[in-house]
């Protein structure tokens, strides 16, 4: 096992990794930007390094400074969390050169799954359904030809993409021509890679992803699914497990497909295989594999009772998985709401300020993953996630009642948040009945979704 872990992240996930490390008896090294020097994860860590000024490009994304901190501290592993450098082959390479274990997959698996077109080909070969789509599209003509065969709507996506950036929906040839260059330049500026591809777009499909864990001894398991259909502009807002639309047979089949995809990638560690699921036909299609621990991982932890971050660290240290597929049991129902510092009244514009008042919910079945405390300053440099509220219950009804109760209790003063937005969303008849899809939220916001 490792002795000391450097946590190359900030906010709630840095704290989450710190907690897992400490439970495993490991020493922790926190890194931080100048504006984060008083953060909770910094104060709780055994050692700390300031790695740069506020902007992430100069601090949390500064590979030489992170590696220097790890080397000086004598860390034997780096946990990248999510976002920032979590899917950076460059960091992984440099870690390998400096005898540091990157807590994540190997370089080849990361590269393969990071290239969305190659990932599609790889899973296609092992019988995992993929949406009709293209390899890299270099010109408008090529895109229009594909549309001629498969029809609209279509999705333009960045080959190096993720997080909703570089994604555009085209409903007709005009859209396609208009979005083609926008998507390319967005992909170029967001990922430094302007390659894009086309995929058939299913507007009423659900986003269902499978949590997988693989070790370096050839064991691969899945920990059930998360339904992340509640999204706004491809950003997930609410995630739950299990999904109301999957029966046991469907779950087994998709779970096995996720395992095949994971094996085909030669993957180890924690990962997520994302599918689009068409509830009408029961068909499912591979979207992509995320080669990191995800924001919504607590949902799976609550229903399986497995600590994914600890398991991820153990597996990276070369230990075999601590459980078999048969031992993984889904217990009850869990739901997560992402509470962001955003103003839903103003198009979800980021809301900055100092938290002067704070009450976090608790009680039966409630877990809150957050780095918030009184006096915390929401900075313009980083994403707007303030807290993840997770509710667990015997069934969906109990989990949702607990969530509603928790959101009523929660108080965050000083910035605008999405707490009330979540309560209204959870209260809609569509959500209660589980009749949601990936474009539901946008339709609901614009007032076109039928209310119960």
């Amino acid at each position: 096992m490792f002795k000391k872990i450097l946590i190359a992240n900030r906010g709630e996930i840095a704290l989450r990794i710190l907690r897992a490390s400490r439970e495993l008896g490991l020493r922790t090294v926190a890194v931080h930007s100048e504006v984060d020097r008083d953060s909770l994860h910094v104060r709780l860590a055994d050692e700390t390094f300031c790695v740069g000024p506020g902007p992430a490009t100069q601090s949390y994304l500064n590979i030489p400074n992170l590696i220097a901190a790890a080397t000086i501290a004598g860390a034997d592993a780096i946990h990248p969390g999510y976002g920032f450098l979590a899917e950076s082959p460059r960091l992984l390479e440099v870690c390998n050169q400096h005898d540091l274990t990157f807590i994540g997959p190997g370089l080849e698996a990361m590269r393969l799954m990071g290239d969305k077109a190659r990932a599609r080909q790889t899973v296609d070969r092992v019988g995992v359904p993929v949406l009709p789509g293209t390899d890299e599209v270099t010109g408008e003509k090529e895109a229009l030809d594909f549309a001629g065969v498969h029809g609209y709507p279509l999705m333009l996506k960045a080959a190096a993409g993720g997080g909703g950036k570089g994604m555009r929906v085209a409903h007709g040839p005009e859209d396609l021509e208009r979005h083609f260059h926008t998507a390319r330049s967005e992909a170029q500026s967001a990922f430094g890679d302007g390659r894009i591809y086309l995929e058939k777009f299913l507007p009423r499909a659900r986003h269902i992803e499978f949590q997988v864990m693989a070790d370096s001894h050839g064991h691969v398991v899945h920990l059930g699914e998360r339904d992340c259909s509640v999204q706004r502009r491809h950003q997930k807002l609410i995630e739950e497990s299990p999904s109301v639309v999957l029966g046991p047979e469907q779950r087994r089949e998709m779970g096995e497909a996720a395992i095949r995809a994971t094996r085909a990638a030669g993957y180890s560690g924690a990962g997520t295989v994302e599918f689009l699921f068409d509830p009408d036909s029961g068909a499912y299609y591979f979207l992509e594999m995320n080669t990191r621990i995800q924001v919504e991982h607590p949902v799976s932890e609550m229903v399986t009772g497995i600590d994914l971050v600890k398991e991820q660290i153990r597996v990276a240290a070369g230990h075999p998985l601590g459980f078999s597929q048969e031992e993984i049991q889904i217990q009850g129902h869990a739901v997560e709401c992402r509470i962001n510092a955003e103003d839903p009244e103003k198009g979800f514009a980021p809301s900055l300020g100092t938290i002067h008042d704070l009450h976090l919910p608790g009680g039966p079945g409630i877990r809150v993953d957050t780095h918030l405390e009184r006096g915390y300053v929401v900075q313009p440099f980083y994403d707007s996630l303030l807290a993840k509220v997770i509710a667990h219950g015997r069934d969906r009804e109990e989990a949702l009642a607990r969530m509603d109760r928790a959101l009523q209790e929660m108080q965050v003063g000083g910035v605008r948040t999405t707490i009330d937005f979540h309560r209204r969303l959870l209260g809609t008849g569509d959500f209660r009945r589980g009749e949601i899809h990936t474009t539901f939220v946008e339709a609901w916001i614009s007032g076109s979704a039928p209310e119960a």
Partner: protein
Amino acid sequence: MEKDITRPEEEARVLARILREEGLAELEFEAGQERFVLRAGRRREHPVPAWTGADPVEEALEALEGLAITSTRVGVVHLGDPQGGAVPAPVGATVPQGGIVAWIETMGVHQEVRSPQAGSVLEILVAEGEPVEYGQVLMVLGGG
């Protein structure tokens, strides 16, 4: 704002309070002929749970004597030339604006640290070969 602050120390405390209350990283001011930089301090190695935190204001006051030259990266500080070993900026030395005062070694690369202005080295706050973090005060420069 007619408050008459005659003692520089008093003035520094007032400014330090502003620095702390506004959560600023840095504050520049002039007193007579001299220019000062107040900088919120660094913290390292916090034992848990006995963490109390170094007071950034106290650290900023320490740097009040002159201009603080800080590290621009994480690495190991070298006060001597990595090639020849000559120490360009020992205590008492006069350095020109843009003059090399130290090197920071990061992933095997030695990056020069240059003085933002001319002055004489009043104090060196790091030892040869010591690890430093971003923003750490390396040395303090007095008016040239």
